[in-house]
């Protein structure tokens, strides 16, 4: 199956986009002929570094002047008019999942967001993804080519991927592309760290609604910093604006994949759990023994989280060799 991967090199999460798609390609398209990658980038970026990220042997670097999905979409629609790929793969981030759905419509194909795995079966492409707010996994079959898919976030990128050597390399300067976005150019506002740090963090501390005030959330954030953990929260906490939006973990936020995750005051709805389930080791601290997370954690402390975390923090800080 001929495939093309599309990456947004202008976003600071380009590394995880590249890893995610590369590991998806390795697991699902290992026997397909080598694919192609289209990578958007801006003037300010180091081209060499971006080339090294390509998950495919053939690379088209497209220099852009805008970095919003509407603009990319116009560009892609033009670029791909005569392209013969049957599969377009996008990372599972906000930009990628939007592009996949809309591009499929423009190319007359079919689309699906957050796909975990694919199997080609004659005239159909079977796709697997979580549905029912993360409680169930569905097999959905697509028939209309080209297939435009965004990948489920948080795929197992730790598995060592084969280094891809770019054999064919093209460049396109699209900065003069005028048809661009019907919306005009948006203003970009960088958020310090954003969700990127959380996505990559080896050790995270996550607080849920069992931590029931802004003050207590703030204290836990301090504790996280003292322990050397990156801090995240569940959706209700972020919706109360007790923590920045980019620290939101779960299907509607960041999908993490740390070595160690300590979850505090989290009941464990599936939509949240999807955000930590790639963790190698999960510790749940919860007063409620019946919380679903208790079943989904490796080790559990049933007690008042404040006392447990304060003590744990003290113990970790005392250990001189730690980060």
């Amino acid at each position, binding site marked *: 199956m001929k495939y093309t991967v599309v990456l947004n090199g202008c976003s600071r999460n380009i590394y995880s986009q590249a890893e995610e798609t590369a590991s998806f390609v390795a697991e699902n398209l290992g026997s397909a002929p080598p694919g192609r990658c289209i990578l958007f980038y801006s003037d300010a970026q180091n081209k060499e570094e971006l080339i090294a990220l390509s998950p495919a042997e053939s690379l088209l670097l497209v220099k852009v002047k805008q970095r919003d999905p509407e603009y990319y979409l116009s560009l892609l629609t033009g670029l791909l008019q005569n392209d013969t790929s049957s599969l377009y793969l996008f990372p599972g981030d906000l930009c990628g999942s939007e592009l996949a759905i809309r591009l499929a419509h423009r190319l007359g194909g079919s689309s699906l967001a957050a796909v975990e795995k694919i199997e080609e079966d004659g005239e159909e492409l079977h796709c697997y993804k979580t549905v029912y707010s993360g409680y169930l996994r569905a097999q959905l079959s697509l028939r209309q080519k080209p297939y435009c898919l965004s990948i489920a976030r948080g795929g197992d990128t730790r598995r060592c991927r084969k280094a891809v050597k770019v054999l064919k390399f093209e460049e396109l300067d699209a900065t003069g592309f005028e048809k661009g976005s019907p919306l005009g150019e948006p*203003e970009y506002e960088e958020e310090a760290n954003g969700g990127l740090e959380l996505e990559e963090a080896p050790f995270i501390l996550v607080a849920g609604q069992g931590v029931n005030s802004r003050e207590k959330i703030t204290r836990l954030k301090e504790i996280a910093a003292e322990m050397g953990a990156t801090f995240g929260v569940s959706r209700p906490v972020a919706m109360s604006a007790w923590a920045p*939006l980019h620290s939101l973990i779960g299907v509607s936020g960041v999908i993490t994949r740390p070595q*160690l995750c300590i979850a505090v005051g989290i009941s464990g709805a599936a939509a949240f759990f999807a955000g930590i389930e790639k963790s190698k080791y999960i510790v749940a601290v919860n007063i409620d023994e019946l919380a679903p997370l208790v079943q989904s954690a490796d080790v559990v*402390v049933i007690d008042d989280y404040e006392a447990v975390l304060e003590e744990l923090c003290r113990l970790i800080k005392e250990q001189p060799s730690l980060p």
Partner: protein
Amino acid sequence: MIAMNILVCFKVTPDLDQLPPDGWEVDRAALTVETSFVKAMINPYDESALELALRFAEDAPGPVKLTALTVGDRSADRYLKMLYALKFDRAVRLETGADLRFTPEGIAAAIAAFVSRNPHQLIIMGRQSGVGDNAATPLLAAEKLGWPCIAHVTEIRSLQEDLLKVRAQADDGFLSYAARPPLVAAVGNVPHAYLRVPTLKERLGVREKKVEIVAAALPAEEGAGCTLTGLDVIDRRRAGLKIEGATPQEKAGALYELYLKERLAKL
């Protein structure tokens, strides 16, 4: 001044977190799960969309007309009536008994068809809803209408007549647009956007108002779409080893010594 017509689309979904763990039983033949016994709610993203629209209407310099639209059966009527009480001008339900779980194409087509018959300049709706989790309907509606779309919206304000300020979450920050309608805004995570509650008086005031019910023919295989061919429960259980101890401090100590110390050293 001509009023700006805003269409807010929402979906009533079961609160799946209420279903007990042993309640997840898949009907192998029909590929369904019984969720009708679970309390219903407005999909949280759509709830934010409705509230953002109400705030927009309050602050807009010119007149605004709000239409609430849903696709589905009569279980949504109670919510539509509530939206009347919250000052929505129209509350419309596209009636269908179809399986709507994995048909974003069909729903988007129905929305586009409604808009072509009932002109609106701005569509606001949640980006995704539980059960199907397709995350596609607003995007496809925009494509079908040929309108621009901003996804993951967190804020919509009126800058001046016919000019909107829209802020949206991006993967590494925020994008702020000064956009002119028509436009589809797919609402993402919005802090502080619980839907307000109508008073009894407001509800009483609209008691006679009828929900507009329009028969909707959802094309079953619109655009070839996708077909559900399998459905399985995800087993997320892990060991769940319980740490024993008399005090929280003791438990923290045991947790640290037995399970964390080595792991932390390896980070």
